[in-house]
């Protein structure tokens, strides 16, 4: 597995790096730290200044060197400078070139009243990436880089595309060697909370669990539960969360094939989640090299 961290020398960048390192502790994992600078060929009103560009380059190399000091020994890590028109484009290009399996970025947190707000960078990625994107919430860096991933949670709905999400969840759980938890979103996909809905949700959770068990080759620990509540926010708050776990969600059906498109449910979950969120592209499949 190759994890790509979209780094900036900011707290959000440190959050992303911390999460990236925790993921890259998995055996055989590699970590790529990518810093994206502006491409020189974009249209500017301000004339380009070779002197300034050189200074910027040196500064950026300094930032990457600092980032490396945050990565503990024992992890295979490389740093890259990418030039692109935007941070999103740079990360996507780097991900394609390096054949990364996951892009990790920090979520901007300057939302009103301390709530999550997706930064423009994350927003671009969450609507176009062809590889899964992990959002490290504000403060991930506080946990440090030593804590292994405690659990992988898959938030599964009944809509088309749940298979891809399950595949990604199983793959990640195997990679980081953590138990897998499947959470059915059925109860909140439907309005009202009558007995029939609850029964449907329980059936769905069981079905998903069966599917997962069928597809597990080794002794991965897997559990299933039902998220319920009057709203997605309620449901997410109602679930027990391990601070060290990671949550996976699928893409909206609006997504182009094999691309990410953050759906409305996932967007609402993002606001409440206390743990990192990974958004998986539509029709995610495991390629041979994985």
């Amino acid at each position, binding site marked *: 597995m190759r994890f790509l961290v979209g780094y900036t020398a900011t707290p959000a960048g440190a959050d992303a790096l911390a999460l990236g390192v925790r993921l890259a502790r998995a055996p055989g994992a590699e970590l790529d730290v990518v810093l994206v600078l502006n491409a020189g060929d974009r*249209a500017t009103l301000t004339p380009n*200044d070779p002197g300034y560009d050189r200074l910027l380059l040196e500064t950026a190399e300094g930032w990457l060197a600092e980032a490396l000091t945050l990565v503990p020994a024992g992890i295979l890590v490389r740093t890259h400078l990418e030039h692109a028109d935007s941070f999103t484009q740079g990360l996507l290009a780097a991900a394609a070139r390096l054949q990364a399996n996951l892009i990790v970025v920090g979520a901007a947190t300057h939302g009103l009243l301390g709530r999550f707000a997706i930064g423009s960078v994350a927003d671009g990625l969450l609507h176009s990436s062809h590889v899964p994107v992990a959002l490290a919430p504000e403060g991930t860096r506080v946990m440090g880089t030593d804590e292994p991933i405690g659990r992988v949670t898959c938030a599964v709905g009944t809509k088309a595309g749940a298979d891809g999400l399950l595949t990604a969840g199983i793959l990640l759980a195997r990679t980081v060697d953590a138990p897998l938890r499947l959470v059915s979103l059925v109860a909140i996909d439907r309005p009202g909370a009558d007995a029939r809905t609850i029964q449907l949700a329980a059936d769905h959770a069981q079905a998903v669990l069966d599917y997962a068990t069928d597809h597990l080759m080794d002794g991965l620990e897997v559990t299933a539960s039902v998220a319920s509540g009057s709203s997605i926010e309620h449901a997410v708050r109602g679930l027990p969360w391990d601070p060290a776990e990671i949550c996976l969600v699928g893409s909206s059906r609006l997504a182009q094939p094999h691309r990410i498109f953050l759906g409305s449910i996932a967007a609402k979950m993002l606001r409440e989640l206390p743990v990192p969120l990974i958004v998986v592209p539509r029709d995610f499949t495991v390629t041979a090299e994985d």
Partner: protein
Amino acid sequence: MTQELNVSAAVEQKAGGISKKGLSAGSVGLVGAVIIGISCIAPAYTLTGALGPTVAEVGLQLPAIFVAGFIPMLLVALGYRELNKAMPDSGTSFTWATRAFGPWIGWMAGWGLIAATVVVLSNLAGIAVDFFYLMLSQIFANSAEIAGLAGNPFINVGTCLVFILIATWISYRDMQTTQKVQYWLVGFQLIVLVGFGIMAFVHIANGSAFDPTPVSLSWFNPFAVTSFSAFAAGLSLSIFIFWGWDVTLTMSEETKGSRSTPGRAATLTVIIVMVLYLFVAIAAISFAGVGGVGVGLGNPEIQGNVFFALAGPALGPFAVLMSIAVLSSSAASLQSTFVSPARTLLAMGHYGALPPAYSKVSPRFFTPGYATVASAIVAAGFYTIMRFVSEDVLWDTITTLGMMICFYYGLTAFACVWYFRRQWFVTVRNAFFTFVFPLVGGIILTVLFCTTLVDSMDPNYGSGSEIFGLGLVFVLGMAILLIGVVIMIVQSQVRPAFFRGETLSLAAPRFGEREE
């Protein structure tokens, strides 16, 4: 499982990702370079700001002075290009003067550049405020009341601060318009200015011009200017109208295609701008004359911002287009001007000539964030004080600006001469480009600077604002330079390393020697 250790500390440089300087070399084509050049000169803004004060000095000989003003500009710009080739550095004048003459003179050259750009920032924002309210009044067909709001100092300063705030925000976040938008903006500016000239001549033909003045050859005769003082003052103003043009010369690193592109771009830019300036200047004088009443260009009431007064009479119902052209021109110029003081402050912080905070680069937007905000605060403060002190803030700032440009351009020209002293006569090209051209340019600018300084002591100089019986322009110029000296001395105590030449040393390379 064998794990490799964290050893690959070196930054991996992949082909296709990062080129030698991080720039995709050869990114700006000929048209792009010309557009950037014109956009930096901002002809609509420059003309409205400079026409009046220059007419006040030289009267009908305005076209002659515009042509004459280009000569020192060209000479210095050629030296500027040589320095930029030998030592590309974001500190430009500061770094080059330090390498040539040592830290003290280098510091003052940097200060001169910062002062000039801060002054022009406040002037730009001031002109934008006038035209903003004029445009509103034109749109709502209520000429007197809304346009008059710009005359209220509190509303004026408030609006100006908002404009500066927006420009700072844009610069800080490094937001850029797309190339297509730039083409439209520049094209629109040129069309409106040409349209203005044509309409002026139509009015003259119809007999409906304000003060029809027949074009005469003497307008092109610089020797017809009454006194040397007037000539010098006019010249230093007309240097301002070409300021920004040097950008096209130094873009050599980025221009696409052959080696000749930068040269052609610079030539093309200057031909376009020169033709435009002459055409509009002749049209304006022919239409309005240089009389002292009404919209005559000699009227001190309108001289700080002539298109503000001329747009209505000349363009009639289309006057709003002129407002939009000047506004967009000011906005583009505000953005391209903002980077120079910020980058120089950054370089000064980087080399230890100023506190290290100035050398901070924003990790999110990759701009010199701290320095950008600092320049904005100074520009805003400068404008606010000037608005309350001066009788005609726009006029006085333009005149002060001309003086400051002469100061730091002059120093830069001499820095070029001195830095290349060991290779003057190695080739014929070097003899001209590193010795003759910058030396002559530097001498002309020095003469202009000294003449302006002495003349501006007269309280009647420029708009006639005075402090302690001395002309405001003189007081301003001296105050700016003296504040620079004081800050320099303080810095030399706090941060002696730079002033001992430890961070940026003297140099005079021989021919063929390249610096790292």
